């Protein structure tokens, strides 16, 4: 019987070596140690042995059993390792393929710039006012100290609907509309973004464009405050190291009037192509609100003063994003829009 045990052991170990799959391993185990397995049936034959032999053979069988189980476990671990290695190999992907495409929309650069300007001024305590794009001659011109046939009206080529109704040429009419609504409340502290229209069309002019108007009316507003607010704005918009300079200018609705230049964001003021070698870039027009405009708005110019400014959104967008032809902004080619 010992030989028989030994034979089963060797045969099983030899077969074990050849096993490749977990299922075969299981089958083999049943074949040897299952209820009808070869080793189990030897155990059943032990009844025919002498009482002296029985414990000895029993021990031998148990030893073999332990040995075989150990071998099985070893082989099982081996197989698991192999299976894992195979899976890793099989599940290998081409990591160079493009990742999943997440659709993404884009904000138009003009609305993006307007939002940014709004955020800066809202942060400084300004509220956002709006006014109609189709305006009366009164609000667009007369209330702004531009009577009929004033030569300064030539500065703006106007689209007319009737003799007295027109497309606003500037966001400035919102100044007077807001003042009339708020009087005698103080301070009047608004910005007014919106579309404006002039009869002009080339690489630097569009018949429709956008402006942001600003207005602060209060007791004791100074031109130095205008400079302070615009310096803060320019640094927020164009970078912390920007400087500004004011140049005398003319707008019928401000006096004194100033053109505002910001130090060039490309060269920092040394002179380059963008700033045409001057180191400065014109970004907006501004000034102290003309007494007649304060009167149009219902305020007494002896009691309050104010400043106003107006900037072209297209110009700022072009500076900010390096856009050379204004017409791109209204062409709406998606290859252009998808950059923003």
């Amino acid at each position: 019987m010992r030989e028989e045990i030994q034979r089963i052991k060797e045969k099983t170990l030899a077969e074990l070596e050849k096993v490749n799959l977990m299922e075969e391993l299981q089958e083999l185990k049943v074949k040897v140690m299952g209820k009808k397995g070869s080793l189990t049936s030897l155990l059943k034959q032990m009844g025919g042995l002498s009482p002296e032999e029985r414990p000895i053979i029993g021990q031998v069988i148990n030893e073999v059993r332990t040995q075989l189980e150990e071998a099985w476990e070893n082989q099982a671990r081996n197989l698991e390792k192999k299976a894992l290695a195979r899976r890793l190999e099989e599940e290998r992907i081409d990591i160079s393929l493009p990742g999943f495409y997440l659709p993404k929309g884009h904000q138009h650069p003009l609305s993006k710039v307007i939002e940014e300007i709004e955020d800066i001024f809202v942060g400084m305590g300004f509220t956002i006012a709006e006014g109609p794009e189709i305006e009366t001659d009164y609000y667009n011109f007369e209330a702004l100290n531009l009577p009929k046939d004033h030569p300064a009206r030539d500065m703006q080529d106007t689209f007319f609907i009737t003799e007295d109704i027109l497309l606003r040429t500037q966001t400035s009419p919102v100044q007077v509309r807001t003042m009339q609504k708020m009087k005698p409340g103080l301070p009047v502290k608004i910005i007014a973004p919106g579309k404006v229209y002039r009869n002009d069309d080339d690489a630097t002019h569009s018949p429709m464009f956008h402006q942001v108007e600003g207005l602060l009316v209060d007791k004791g507003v100074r031109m130095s405050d205008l400079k302070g607010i615009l310096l803060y704005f320019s640094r927020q918009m164009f970078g912390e190291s920007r400087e500004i300079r004011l140049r005398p200018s003319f707008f019928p609705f401000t006096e004194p009037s100033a053109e505002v230049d910001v130090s060039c964001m490309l060269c920092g003021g040394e002179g380059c192509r963008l700033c045409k070698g001057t180191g400065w870039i014109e970004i907006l027009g501004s000034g102290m609100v003309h007494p007649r405009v304060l009167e149009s708005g219902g305020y007494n110019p002896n009691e309050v003063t104010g400043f106003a400014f107006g900037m072209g959104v297209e110009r700022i967008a072009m500076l900010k994003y390096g856009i050379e032809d204004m017409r791109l902004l209204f062409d709406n080619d998606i290859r252009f829009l998808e950059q923003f």
Partner: protein
Amino acid sequence: MRVSMKWLKQYINSNVGPEELAEILTSGGIEVGAVECLNKGFKDVYIGEIKAIHPHPDSDKLQVCLVQIDTKELTIVTGATNVLQGDKIPVAVPGAVLPGGKEIQPTELRGIPSNGMLCSDKELGIESVGLDRSKGGILILPSDAPVGKKLEDYLELDDHVLELELYPNRPDCLSMVNVAREVGTLLGVQPSLPEWAQGEVPVWPEDIKQKVEIENPDLSWRYAALLVDDVVIKPSPLWMQNRLRAAGIRPINNIVDITNYCMLEMGQPLHAFDRDKLNGTIRVRLASQGEKIVSLDGTERKLDSDMLVIADDRGPVAIAGVMGGLDSEVTDKTTKILFESAHFLGASIRRTSRKLGLRSESSSRFEKGVNPYWAVPTLGRVAELLIELEAGNPMSFTEKVCYLPPAVQIEVSLNRVNKVLGVDYTSQEIEKVLDALNFAYKQKQEDIFLVDIPSYRQDIKIEVDMIEEIARVIGYDRIPTTLPAGAQTGGRRTPEQAFRLKLRKTLIKCGMNEVVSYSFVKKESDQIWGSDRGNIPLLNPLREELGTMRTSLLPGLLEIASRNSARRNMDLLLFEIGSVYLPKELPLTALPEEVTRIAGLAQGGDKRHWLVPQAKYDFFYVKGILSEIAKESGVQFEYRRVEGSKYKTLLHPGRSAEIFIQGINIGVVGEIYPQLDQEWGLQRPVLFELDFAQLFKESNQTIIAKSYPRFPAIQRDLAVVVPKDIPAEKIQKRVFELGGELLKEVEIFDVYQGHPVPEGHKSLALTMRYQSAERTLKDEEVNALNSNILSGIQQEFGAEWRK
């Protein structure tokens, strides 16, 4: 205004260079647009005389000229045919350079050596110089041109011109004298000006025969006439021609040149009439309707009754301040002249010039405002030049003055200056500025100035004008930066502005690209897509196809989509948020309603990707985007088939819907009507347009957080086959009702038509989520609910359970 540095330096003693002066002027508020060198880049070009011309022995296209320059004689071969023996011509000698950098070398042309080049005006970059014979050939100079002199010196081209871009408030700087004053102020140099430039009024015997009448004193305040005899018409002297050319005015003859020269000096437009062609009283009056005049340019002009003319007893002889009449033009035969120096109201001249489409140096000056005080001093200067140039004898004078603006005195308080500007100037600084400006003043108190504004500064009317004047002369750099000292305010967007921004961000999150299109569109497209209330036309559109204010955003989107598609950008998800303009009545008598809309266009599909099938931008894709809008707005959209409205013929009737919130129509969505897309070069785009104001009104953006249930949900799927015309939403709603309060959610996750589903039917797959807030549900009760649902819809819709 073109300002010659040479001319300027007659009045200003300073060695400031053109570039430096340009900068000083610009930062002082007189913007210099460009600095131009009059010599366009030639060097070593001399005046030569043609001593002899021979034909070239070897060519019938060339001539050989013997040219004298100084003591030298040069042989030059030329192809030009307009030169004659004795002509004075510009010669580029060997070593000379022409504009553009071309260098002249001795050469040989068909065997004859050529030592230089005869030049045309184009080659030299100069204009309006030389005899008429110069046209198209070599520039032929007047016969008195000094042989051997450098052309640059002869024409005074060693000069720079500053191009002033004047704001409308400074018409005074359309005068060289006033530019000199301005430059003097900014440089701190006293200009040296002749007496006529300081307003000196000359005295002539009064002409008793020549009467002048002003019928419309509101439109013309003053009319002065200088009568001149013994006129000899000839070219003006070279120095005057050179000055005029530098200023951009073409020399004509001595009389015309004098009027232009004096206009440039003093800013006062002048006109010279041939007195022999005038009859009787000169009248400044309005034209009668339909009255005609042939203006100097030879065009017959029909006049309106609001146009000011100068007329004699027979009719109009000039369109006042705009252009003279051809009949009374000064010609070579003229011997007697009436020089007009008048005031006309800018607004009137502006209207007339606009209506006639006729602009002139004169009209553009009158429009901006001419100083009526200088009418007569300018005539004094005219008389002086007539005598100096031996052009005629000033004999007598006649004048009508109706009105002169009163002298302006302004009280300027130092305290007010400092308060408005935020500076701390001293009285001494103010005094210095006033002295630099040459404004006379008295001090009421140490810090209150009474300033007399000279008549040529019509722009200074009130104290703030003086404050600007002081600030700019001292320099805006002196203004510090401060922050407003007033009450602090909290800035924010209004709820409506915030909502608009939120919707914009939502659409971008949904993958849509924002566009901005013009508010004016083609009338026909807007009539198709826009409001029934009609649309607002522009009186003067840029182009016909931009002639109408839009009443819908859709034509603009179609246009943009069309442009993109033509460039092979076929896959489009576009939206715009903008106004449409709805008239209350037409033609407009009041401002129209401006209504914000949100519109979108989808075409094609999303980017093709190896991982997933391409999603098509169809009705349901867009409906998905709309439901995001509904979600962000806190509302439910209800979709009803388009019936009766104009969209019936614009959108596919089977693939479109009007959108409602609680019974209120707020917009429309749908695929474009078949074939309409081809007109735009598009492929089945889906469009939507929503009314922002309505959406905002109905929106509910309050968020009240609910806690989530502690007990697990049970999910069941159910597939049924129903007749295909029954809307899925109807079944979904019914299922929800049948499920009772434990059924929390029903979703449609599959729709299928075709084999093996019988003809005329569709298969719907629903998923249902049951949940209780109090307990864990048992399978049995969910099964009971599910079969209740099934039998319910079986009865109601004839639905079949599909296993």
